[in-house]
C-alpha cells in the first residue's frame, strides 16, 4: 500500500515562503476553483492557504536558533478528520493515502476542522466548503507533465530542497531513507494520528 507524503528537512528550510506562494498559485488555478483572498491589499488581508511557513526561536538568548517550520496537512495514516465527516466528503484514498475533501459532497459543517489537531484545514467562505492540501493530486499523476515535474508545487518551488516527496511505505524511496537516516519525527505524536508527513530535525553541529 502506497502512502504518499512530504518529508520536511528543517536543516535546510530558509523560510523563504516559496512553497507557500507556489502552492497558492497552483491550487488557485485548478478545476476546484480559486483559493479566495479577502482584502488582499486592504487593512485586514485574509485568504485560504494549504501551506504555511512558521518561525520559531529555540533556546535561551544568546544561544538561540531560528527554525523555519513549514506546516501543511500531514495526510495522517489514522486521520481523525475522516470518520467524523457526516457526508463522506472527507476521505482518505486507498490507492495512495492522500486525505482529500470532495468539494461536491461537503456541506460546510466545519466538523472535520475541529477534529484536526494540526489546524491543517481552512474553510473557504466563498464556496462554503472545507479545503485542504491535496498533495497536488492534480499534478502528480498528470502524464502531460514531464516525469520530473510530477511532484507537488511546493516541492518544485523549494530552492533548498527542504521538501522531499515520496512513498513512505516503500522502504527504498528517498523519503523513507531520509526519515530512517535522519531521525525523522512526527508532530503531536501523543495524539496517535500517525502523520504520514514527517520532519527531519536539525543536526547538532558543534
Amino acid at each position, binding site marked *: 500500500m502506497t502512502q504518499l507524503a512530504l518529508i520536511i528537512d528543517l536543516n535546510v528550510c530558509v523560510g523563504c*515562503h516559496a512553497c*507557500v506562494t507556489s502552492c497558492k498559485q497552483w491550487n488557485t488555478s485548478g478545476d476546484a476553483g480559486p483559493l479566495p483572498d479577502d*482584502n488582499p491589499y486592504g487593512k*485586514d*488581508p*485574509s*485568504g*485560504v*492557504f494549504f501551506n*504555511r*511557513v*512558521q*518561525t*520559531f*526561536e*529555540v*533556546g*535561551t538568548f544568546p544561544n538561540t536558533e*531560528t*527554525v523555519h*517550520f513549514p*506546516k501543511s496537512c500531514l495526510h495522517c495514516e489514522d486521520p*481523525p478528520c*475522516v*470518520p*467524523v*465527516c*457526516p*457526508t*463522506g*466528503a472527507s476521505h482518505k484514498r486507498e490507492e495512495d493515502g492522500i486525505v482529500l475533501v470532495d468539494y461536491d*459532497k*461537503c*456541506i*460546510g*459543517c*466545519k*466538523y472535520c*476542522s*475541529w*477534529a*484536526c*489537531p*494540526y*489546524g491543517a*484545514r*481552512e*474553510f473557504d467562505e466563498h464556496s*462554503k*466548503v472545507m479545503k485542504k492540501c491535496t498533495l497536488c493530486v492534480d499534478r502528480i499523476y498528470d502524464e502531460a507533465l514531464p516525469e520530473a515535474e510530477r511532484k507537488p508545487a511546493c516541492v518544485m518551488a523549494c530552492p533548498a530542497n527542504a521538501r522531499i516527496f515520496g512513498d513512505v511505505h516503500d522502504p527504498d524511496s528517498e523519503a523513507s531513507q531520509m526519515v530512517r537516516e535522519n531521525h525523522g*519525527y*512526527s*508532530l*503531536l*505524536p*501523543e*495524539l496517535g494520528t500517525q502523520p504520514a508527513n514527517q*520532519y527531519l*530535525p536539525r543536526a547538532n553541529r558543534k
Partner: protein
Amino acid sequence: MHPAFSVIFFTTLAGTGQGLFLALFLGQVYDYANPDFELGSAFFANGGAIALAFLTGGLIASIFHLGHPMRGWRAFSQWRTSWLSREVIALPAMMIMTFLYAAAHFIGQPAEVTITIGVIGLIVNLALFICTGMIYACISFIREWATPLTIVNFVLIGAASGFSFAVAYAAVAAPELVNMYGRYAIVLTGAAMIIRAWMLSRNKQLRESQKSTTQTATGFRNPNVRQTSMGLMGGSYNTREFFHGQTEAFIKNIKAIFIIASFVAPIGLLAGGLVTESLILLGAAHLIQYAGLLAERWHFFASANHPQNIYYQSVG
C-alpha cells in the same frame, strides 16, 4: 473555540424540546397511576406540539451552521463512523416521535397506544442526547469535551430546561402537575449545576497539565521554544475559528452569569413560585434559565482549548 450561535441555539432549543417530551411522558405516567388525576388529552397534545416547535426551532438554527444546507441529506450517509451523521438521523426521528405522541393524544388514542409511542420516543430522545454530546466528547484531543460529563451535562441541562418550561405550562394548563414538575425541575437543575461545576474544576486541572505542548507540536525538544511568526499577519480561518477572541475578564463574567442565571436563580424562582403559586415567578424561572443556558453553552465552546492553537501563538 469560537462559539457559533447556530449551534448554541440548536443545542439549547432541541434540549428544551427533548426535556419537555420527558416531562410530558412522566406527566402521563403520573396521570395513569393516580386515579384522582383527570388530565385531558389536550394537555399532552398541545405540550407535544410545543415540544415539536422547540425541536423545529433547533433544526432551523442548525441549518444556519451549514455552508451548503441543500446538501444536508448527504449527512444521513456516514452513521457508521460519524456522531454528527447519527445526530442528523436522530433529530428527525425525535421530531417524528414527538409528532406521533402529540397526534395520538389529539385524536384520542387509548393509553396503550400513547404510552407505547412515549416509550419509543424516550429511547429516541436518549439516543439524540447521546449523539449530540458525543459529537463533542468523541474528539479526544479537545480535552475539555472528551469526557462522559459532556453527555451527562447535555442530558441534565436539556431535561432541566424542559421541566422548567413544563412547570410554567402546567401552571396554565394542568395545575395538578405543577408541584411534581416543580420538584423535578429543581432537582434536575441542581444536578446539572453539580455536573457543570465538576466540569469547570476539571477544566482548571486540564489547564495546569497540558498534554500537547509547543515541544510536542514542533518536535523541538528544547524547553525554551517561542513562536516568532505564525506565517501570516492578517488572520486566517485558523485564527478565527479556534479562538474565542475575548478577554479573561469577559469569560469570567460569562461564567458568573451562567451559574446564576442557569442554576441558582431558577431554583430560587421555582421554589418561590411553588410556595406562592405565582405564575410570574414560574414563567420567569424558565425564561431566565434559558437565557442562562445560552451563556452556559457559549462558555462550553469558548473554554475548549484546541491543540491547533499551539501553532498560532504569535503573529510575528
